[in-house]
């Protein structure tokens, strides 16, 4: 099933079973969504539940917060994470704090969905990965989906929660076809072990998971290095326990993410591992991440700015060699 269809199915299911669920955002209605995620919902549920908004991100999120406080369960779509910057005040000062400041009396069953990441030559203002912006704010939940299974179940879970969730997708994943299955008792707070291994623990999320799996396949085939690949669904809170358990076994950690290396999510992960499992480590943790530049428009430079399967393979291999694996 296509990733976008999995999201569409989750929205459709939620709207069908709960009349309080509404969708709002730029072009989500009549046009069917910029990435066709809300395709067909307008026809089925009408303009009262699938709401086309003006191009005003701050208002979209603000309105959604209002709706949620008054008893609806809105799912807002921001066209891409780059435009969510305009709504940062709503995210950080309202969404994240209202439940806390009301002593738990206010409910905020709200989801804000948006894609992020490098697609193909959309230039710096449309290619950022900003998960750490949201994942660093107490009071928010941040989910992301790397395939159709986590897209469908993760989004449904987010809609059912009474807390605000920022739901991150990846532009390049929308058109990808993944196996889909119904998972009973799906838990977005539990990281998924996509591949078992014994030498290195490799943690990743969103699209980088697939590049990582490819690189790890090569490492296994060509160099006999066996990697355990872990996919994070929730970026706040992070399921550290699963990662700890894996590192206790492999004694080595690699984190792969698309955002720039400095102060990205990998910094948090390797710091935690160093704090908690210092004596279990057989090598310093390694981060494979984007370069410290705005994403270039030129395709060659664009690919140089982010990890690719080849790059991940080479980095892990040379790191293994210099640290005695």
């Amino acid at each position, binding site marked *: 099933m296509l990733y976008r269809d999995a999201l569409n199915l989750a929205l459709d299911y939620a709207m069908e079973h709960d009349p309080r669920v509404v969708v709002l955002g730029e072009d989500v209605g009549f046009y069917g969504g910029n990435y066709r995620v809300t395709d067909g919902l307008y026809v089925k549920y009408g303009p009262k539940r699938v709401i086309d908004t003006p191009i005003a991100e701050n208002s979209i999120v603000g309105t959604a917060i209002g709706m949620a406080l008054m008893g609806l369960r809105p799912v807002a779509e921001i066209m891409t994470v780059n435009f969510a910057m305009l709504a940062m005040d709503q995210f950080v000062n309202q969404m994240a704090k209202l439940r806390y400041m009301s002593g738990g009396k206010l409910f905020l069953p709200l989801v804000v969905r948006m894609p992020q990441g490098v697609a193909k030559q959309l230039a710096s203002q449309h290619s950022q990965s900003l998960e750490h912006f949201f994942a660093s704010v107490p009071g928010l939940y941040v989910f992301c989906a790397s395939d159709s299974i986590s897209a469908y179940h993760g989004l449904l879970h987010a809609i059912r929660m009474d807390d605000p969730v920022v739901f991150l997708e990846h532009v*390049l994943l929308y058109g990808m076809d993944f196996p889909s299955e119904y998972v009973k008792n799906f838990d977005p707070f539990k990281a998924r072990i996509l591949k078992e291994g014994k030498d290195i623990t490799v943690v990743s999320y969103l699209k980088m998971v697939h590049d990582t799996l490819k690189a790890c396949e*090569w490492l296994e085939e060509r160099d006999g290095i066996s990697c355990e690949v872990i996919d994070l669904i929730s970026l706040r809170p992070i399921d550290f326990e699963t990662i700890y358990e894996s590192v206790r076994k492999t004694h080595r950690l690699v984190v792969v993410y698309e955002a720039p290396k400095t102060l990205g999510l990998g910094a948090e992960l390797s710091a935690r591992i160093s704090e908690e499992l210092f004596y279990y480590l057989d090598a310093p943790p390694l981060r494979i991440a984007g370069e410290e530049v705005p994403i270039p428009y030129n395709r060659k430079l664009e690919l140089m700015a982010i990890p690719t399967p080849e790059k991940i393979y080479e980095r892990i291999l040379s790191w293994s060699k210099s640290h*005695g*694996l």
Partner: protein
Amino acid sequence: MSVYLAGAKAMDYEVLMPQFSDTMERGKIVRWLKKEGDYVEKGEVIAEIEAEKAVMELQSFKKGTIKRILVSEGQEVEVGKPIAIMELGERIEKPKLEEKPKLEEKPKVEERKPPPPPKEIEKEKRIELPPGFASPYARLLAKEKGIDLKELQEEGRLPSPTHAKDIEEFEKERYFTPKALELLREYELSLEELLKEFPNKKIDEDLFLAYVEQKGIPRRVPVSSVQKSLISNLSKSFVIPHYHMYEVFDLSLIPWDKEITLTHWLVKIVGDAMQFFERLRAVYKEDHYLVYPSSNVGLAIAVGDELYNPVIKEVNRKSLREIAQEVRELRKRAEEGKLSLEDIRGATLTISNLGMFGIRAFDAVIPYGQVCIIAVGMQEGDGKTHMTFTFDHRVINGFHGALFVKHLKEKVLDKNYIKMLKKGA
């Protein structure tokens, strides 16, 4: 050999896994001699392929540029499956500019070949520090195992910084002789298990063998790819509707010696006899038989633990001496593992002789794709020899079989014929 891919560019051509022999079902890429982007002329060798019991060279049927390699070295695929994609045509001088991707294009997860590790990785050295450094986990291990890291680092027996793997290696060398390590891998036992069993003791071959005997641990013997194909073919042979004929032959007239053995004689006599019975030169296909003009006789040859089934072609046109020479060459090639596919295909009948081991009589399994096997027993004092014929009933019915056996019995007692063969040799 080729089909055009739907959706591919009109000039894309699929290189398929070829079928080198009638019974070949799968082939393994041993080595690619060309890489992606290489230009190949028609007839140029592009890859080495292992099938059944031999390594063959795959030549390109077309000229063009190899665009993508789909099956990497060491992988096995079925016959007829694409293994590479070529762009046909003359050598392309200039690389084409990438086409601009359309906005709503479905991104494909490409099956890319692993990148060759760049030279700097190949040269990548591990970090070296003065004695006294180790990873936190290596320190933990050293403490557990009672190893003095600093001392060993100063002696140069452990690198600095020390990692977990170095300690494992050191443990191996400290407690195991090289031979015992080899056995450890062969029996797939864990290092820890043995170290626990024999604390602070050097484990050598004898100790190890005594341990596995006491515990009754089986040894793992890998099956070579040659044997794998043989075994799978044998299982297929058993679904052939077959039956046996038992007969005692008088071979006292055959003047065999060390130079030209009884086996060589039998190959010749049987090959000549096959000329009178075309069903014995036939291969069964669903709705027809393929009848070969000449007699191609296979021989079951054991080399070490392996069994080979090379073929002597056109036996009816060869002299005894030529046959003997050819069998010796085939055996030599089998021993060196250099039998080509040409050497092992095309037989319709095989002879298996176990007489030299004193076996009186036995029956044999028809090699897959053939119609008959003759199991030759020991020649007794009076020249009497038991031979068991196994026939494929779909090709040879009892009547055919009986006539063939009768004909053979007459041939081995035909003085003139034997004399003529001897002269011809």
